[in-house]
């Protein structure tokens, strides 16, 4: 049992290279330039197996093709008990060779787009987090794969740190950063209100100031003077 030796469909380097060129050229014509932001794991917890303290410190620019061309996918905008949630997802296609040229040559260990890295999508000026990278979306055409499909969703912001040196990236979330000096007073809660449109911490505090009885001399309200007049 063997394939026909007169047909070589999977090992022609010239053919593979031609398809690569065509794919790259197509993406250059129809694609969108994006900024790829790589993530450095800085707070890995070996018990919970997560990194709650990532830092994004390098950017790379290259062209991608928007595969979900009819619009963002996902659940869209909706109101949850936590306020407005925007669950837009996006699938971008980048040529393997493009990624290698713009990223791997700069950072050797970045051989492919990585889950957890970010992509700044310029059309709506929003930041997307890569959830999954599919490397076999086009199945071994002429014996090799040509593209990565990057499936990403709008970032959930949790005070991630940006030190890329790219001003528009580093300052992007500056006004939403709730990493503030905590001194448990109203001034801090005011600051939180400015950075989070949906935080009612200060409103509750002010409302409750009028009803909570934290009198030190009378913590249990047993000595209230009752007027008989």
């Amino acid at each position, binding site marked *: 049992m063997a394939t026909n030796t007169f047909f070589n469909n999977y090992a022609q380097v010239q053919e593979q290279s031609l398809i690569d060129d065509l794919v790259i050229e197509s993406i250059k014509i129809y694609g969108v330039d994006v900024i790829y932001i790589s993530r450095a794991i*800085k*707070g890995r917890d070996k018990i*919970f197996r*997560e990194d*709650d*303290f990532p830092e994004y410190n390098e950017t790379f620019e290259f062209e991608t093709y928007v595969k979900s061309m009819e619009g963002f996918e996902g659940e869209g*905008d909706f*109101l949850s*008990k*936590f*306020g*407005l*949630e*925007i669950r837009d997802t996006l699938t971008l296609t980048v040529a393997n060779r493009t990624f290698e040229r713009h990223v791997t040559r700069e950072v050797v260990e970045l051989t492919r787009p990585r*889950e957890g890295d970010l992509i700044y999508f310029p059309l*709506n*000026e*929003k*930041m997307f987090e890569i*959830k*999954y990278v599919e490397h076999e979306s086009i199945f071994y055409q002429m014996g090799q794969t040509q593209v990565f499909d990057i499936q990403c*969703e709008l*970032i*959930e912001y*949790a*005070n991630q740190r940006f030190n890329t040196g790219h001003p528009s990236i580093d*300052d*992007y*979330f*500056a*006004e*939403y950063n*709730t*990493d503030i000096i*905590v001194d448990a007073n109203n001034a*801090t*809660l005011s600051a*939180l209100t*400015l950075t989070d*449109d*949906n935080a*009612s*911490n200060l*409103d*509750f*505090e002010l*409302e*409750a100031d*009028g*009803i*909570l*009885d*934290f009198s030190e001399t009378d913590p*249990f*309200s047993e000595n*209230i003077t*009752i*007027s*008989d*007049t």
Partner: protein
Amino acid sequence: MAIANYFYNSTIRKYVALFGTYFNQLEVRRTSTDGTLNQRQIVPISYGPYQKILARLDQDPNIEGGASFDADGNPSAGQPYAMTLPRMAFELTSFTYDAERTVAPTRKIRKTAVDEANGGRRFVYSGTPYNMGFSLYIMAKYNEDAVKCLEQILPFFNPEFTSTVRLIDGLEPMDIPLILTDVTSEDLYEEAFTTRRSIL
């Protein structure tokens, strides 16, 4: 009609504010792998029900993305993220009549101040005992953020946490116990890589 005497003391609204203020200064601190303290933040909390038009106008006023701001420093662009985490929300879920706390309706409670404009009456009749159910939700991007919040809450409830509240003007403050009845957690992590992990 028997019930035709308008009054409104905002008691339920006060209960909501009171519940919110119990948890409005929870803090999450994050450290890097070497243990250095690097971030401190107060966890945002809000009342879950939200008028939809206001939610949209408050949080996504201009629809488009980009972190641009007006002259006052307030974000003027659309919401550039899906949501911010960790955060908490709560809602009022139930009202239950508590027969065990019922007292005779003719029992009088003396007022601390006499309201001359209202006939100078020096007492009110006893209230009707209802238990109000609240649900508090914590959502986090990271498991450890969620347990940090939880660990700061649970020790205060044995199973109740009592505070003294001036609920109605003219009456002496009341002790209001907040009783923790149930804690559940949910971590959706098992599905496809493209499915969002949700820690509640």
